[in-house]
């Protein structure tokens, strides 16, 4: 991207011309149906992978939940889509450490998680009197 021009500060207002190259993609990302989630997670656990985290994305009417695993610094991601209103199965039976992030997703997105060993009932991040779902997109 270097041009012959004098390099200027990156803080200049960016031009809105879209870049020529294709949008960046996450490597090793595999879309899986929700029913396959637990068997696949179990297989990752059997290989000794470390659960990095879960990411929830509001897609409007549905959620995409990404599961990030690390095996010797190689990342492997699973992506499962879940319609709004459905319950997400908890993976805490395989990875106990997921209870925090699953509770966080339940709090901030209002996506219900089924089978949590410690359920904060949407009060992990939010206060007692809060009723909104801060990370949902405004429509």
């Amino acid at each position, binding site marked *: 991207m270097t041009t012959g021009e004098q390099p200027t500060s990156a803080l200049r207002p960016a031009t809105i011309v879209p870049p020529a190259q294709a949008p960046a993609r*996450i490597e090793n990302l595999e879309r899986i149906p929700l029913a396959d989630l637990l068997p696949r997670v179990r297989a990752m656990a059997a290989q000794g992978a470390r659960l990095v985290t879960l990411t929830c994305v509001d897609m409007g009417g549905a959620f995409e939940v990404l599961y990030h695993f690390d095996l010797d610094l190689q990342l492997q991601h699973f992506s499962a889509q879940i319609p709004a209103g459905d319950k997400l199965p908890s993976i805490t039976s395989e990875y106990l450490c997921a209870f*925090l992030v699953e509770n966080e997703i339940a709090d901030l997105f209002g996506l219900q998680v089924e089978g949590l060993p410690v359920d904060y009932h949407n009060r992990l991040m939010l206060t007692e009197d809060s009723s909104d779902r801060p990370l949902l997109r405004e429509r």
Partner: protein
Amino acid sequence: MSARTVIPFGPQHPVLPEPVQLRLTLEEERVVEAIPAIGYVHRGIEKAAELNEWVQNVFLVERICGICSFLHALCYCQGIETLLGVEPPPRARYLRVVWGELHRLHSHHLWLGLLADSFGFESLFMQFWRNREMIMDLLEMTAGNRVIVSTCTVGGTRRDIAQEQASEILRTLDKVQNELDKLLPVISNDYTVRSRTVGKGVLPKDKAIRLGAVGPVLRASGVAQDVRMIGYAAYGELGFTPVVEQAGDAHARLLVRMKETYQAIDLIRQALAHMPEGEIITRVRGNPRGRTISRVEQPRGEVVYYLAGNGTRNLERLRVRTPTFANVPALVQMLPGCELADVPVLVLSIDPCISCTER
């Protein structure tokens, strides 16, 4: 079977600089269960990042944490650079290593002092914090600010380190190392330190991986995993092997961090010695499109950013998984079986950063 007592540890507690609560169920003096409660300082930074422009977010993500602010900015900028397809110039990559390791150095000093304070070793605490001031002065000299250095930006860095500043850094690092040499025997052999940390909160290797522990907690359990090994910034060009300890107890975590201070000093020296001349910033145009994962090793462990852009000035989603968030489950599993008096030491042994955890 004795009666059980529930003790709320925190959110306000002398060893906790930040609010987090552990609901401890005790049988006499022994902890049988610990339930964490966070959310006291949740600031909604992930949401704010969707509302701000992506250029402004550099300053926002720096404020996720006051101790590893540069590394948050670095992780964010590397992610945006992937989305935009830009490559920072070589000098900027070395400058990022220098500031990143200065941050690791001062963060570990802060933690080593706090741990000493948690078991009442005040003079050791003072020594570490006195040392830390020298590093804070280096940050202020090179970046203009002690903590939130704001030197990293998308495409490179915003400031350069001049030759005389580099020699000043090297001079100060010699002094810091000289002081650390006096403190290393205290950390590894002192009776007080050993009696409060050896054998406390043992986390076996397989459990550490299964619980998703990261950073020094993982490496103290014998797992040689450090995100710097993937070679971001200039780490791939510098000699670097992760510090690993096998014992998995609080003392092993202490030793890992102590040895990482030496490693950070060594990396800064290497980076300054091999720093190429040239530009420090690449011109950036366009807006981020697509999505990516960015990872950086912070003093507390691996930080993960998920960035999704849609070609506008605002990001579609920014998700931050900070190291303490990953280490809290490990802590919860460490606590059962320990004495109530050891809880402060064990809580500190994961180096909790609550403002990171809650974002």
